[in-house]
């Protein structure tokens, strides 16, 4: 591979990693918000409201947070599949059939 191609590949990988880290930060912020902020620090405030017979804070801490965690992981897996496919397509484009 030529020098410029090596640089382009490196850049594609760096971009991929940056997207990956940004995705993680977003998802982990939601994780922290739901578990620490809503279900612990603000649970008394949320308990003023209710949902289906449950005080909202209580529901969030004992049920809602778990549902959110499951969704977060599946969102992560699906999005990473897309990033992986896009990286592969980019790299394939660069080596222009030499692969």
């Amino acid at each position, binding site marked *: 591979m030529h020098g410029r191609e090596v640089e382009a590949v490196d850049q594609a990988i760096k971009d991929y990693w940056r997207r990956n880290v940004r995705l993680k930060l977003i998802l*982990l912020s939601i994780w922290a918000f739901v578990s620490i902020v809503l*279900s612990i620090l603000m649970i008394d405030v949320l308990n003023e409201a209710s949902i289906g017979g449950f005080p909202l804070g209580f529901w969030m801490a004992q049920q809602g947070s778990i549902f959110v965690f499951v969704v977060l992981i599946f969102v992560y897996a699906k999005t990473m599949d897309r990033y992986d496919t896009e*990286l592969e397509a980019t790299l394939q484009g660069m080596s222009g059939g030499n692969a």
Partner: protein
Amino acid sequence: MSVEVWTWIVVGLTFALYIYIAMRQRARDTEGFYVAGHGVPAVANGMAVAADWMSAASFISMAGIIAFLGSDGSVYLMGWTGGYVLLALLLAPYLRKFGKYTVPDFVGDRYYSQTARIVALVAAIFVSFTYVAGQMRGVGIVFSRFLNLDINVGVFVGMAIVTVYAVTGGMKGITWTQVAQYSVLIIAYLIPAIAIASKLTGMPIPQLGFGGVLDDLNAIQTDLGFGAYTDAFSSLSTLNVLFITIALMTGTAGLPHVIVRFYTTKTVRDARWSAGWALFFIAILYTTAPAVAAFAKTNLMDTVSNQSYEQVKAENSWFGSWEETGLLSFDDKNGDGIINYQAGDGNELTVDRDIMVLANPEIAGLAAPITALVAAGGLAAALSTASGLLLVIGSSIGHDLYTKVLKRGTTEAQRLRAGRIAMAGGVLVAGYFGINPPGFVAEVVAFAFGLAAASFFPVIVLGIFWKKTTKEGAIAGMAIGMTFTFVYIVMTAKGLLGMDPWFFDISPQGIGTVGMIINLVVTYGVSKISKEPPAEIQELVESLRIPEVASAYLKEGKA
């Protein structure tokens, strides 16, 4: 037929199933023995993780723990689920890409140090042994409660079963048996839960129905002098709820027997999906447990409070039979024949937490085979967790110590034999602790999670995300984090020295969070002042971040 006979039948059938599966999936080489040949599909792996994760404690005790803690039971609900998000995003895919066999493998290679490897393997063995003692004891307890066997006989039976399917099957056998064990335990948990939900609220889905009993439950509890069930921080302080939840979540992501479960998938992509499936399968039980807790507590209080003791016994057969096992006891302090269940000194009724799940089928009026199924479910939960832990113990000794540190075992056959012998040895020691449990069994959870949070979690995460973490940093961080956590737990745990929690009143269960922070700070600081890791290690770290397809392109480019 009686419950006992049904239990023999149902448990016997499930044991036969596990042995059959393990014989079919027998490991024939070290790759099969340690990482199931990297061949487990994502959904199946998810079920195996779920079974491995949910131990005897989750199955039998958790609903009861939540019933008595009320809202603050969320520390366990979030603590034992939230860590999977950390695993999926920060650990599993990278360790799968790394592709070796164990956690000390990663620590030793990443930190280019035999010392680091040894520290890691000692920590892995300690954490896994403390945990597995509780599982073997759990097996003994289920046998004694349901089959009237002596607890020790139950432990021996458990040891025998685990030896047959785990030592012969290795990770391959263990994984597929765990899939079967998950199926057994989830059905065993859901049937009584759905039955009691229908009975109390007319709504068979426990997660939806349980809102309906909360007002009543709050009222009964406050009438009797307990705090309201749904009030936060009535059992634990805000600080402790925060610190314990975080310690449990980060500890989850640092437990070796959970981490190695992600080495077994076919690809990196499958590792991520499998984490999602794992949490999905775990969530089915973990969202049902708080419902069971609320229903069972409501039912108990409705049935017994301020009723005549003789009448309650006459009308509810479960009351008498569980009194005989000691899970319930009535002490008529004021001599009036009425059961005064209340907060404070006048309380006359002592209730063991495990009754919430164990007695549930009888309370809900279900037939004997269902109670037998609950026994089989509890055993499935205990055995699946025990086998995962024993694999870590076996691999730490048979692979990390024997092959990688002592450099013995040059052929596949020798290495495979070493793994089997190490695991069998682990079964014996685990059995011994099952029969002679150390006084601090209850603190085992604090130890295992606290140490995992303070040792493995920070060091693995930093190792993946910061190329410049050095071996000196990692060793210092692990050593100081672990020591601080270990000493604090020994000092403050009730089964040990029992001193007052002196660090901002944080309980021993929550101190792992502090240990983790100390580890992070020390690892970072020491890494900054020590020599940078060698270039090939920094390249190793970069290679972990790239999907397999891209690695292939890079290889071709360099050719």
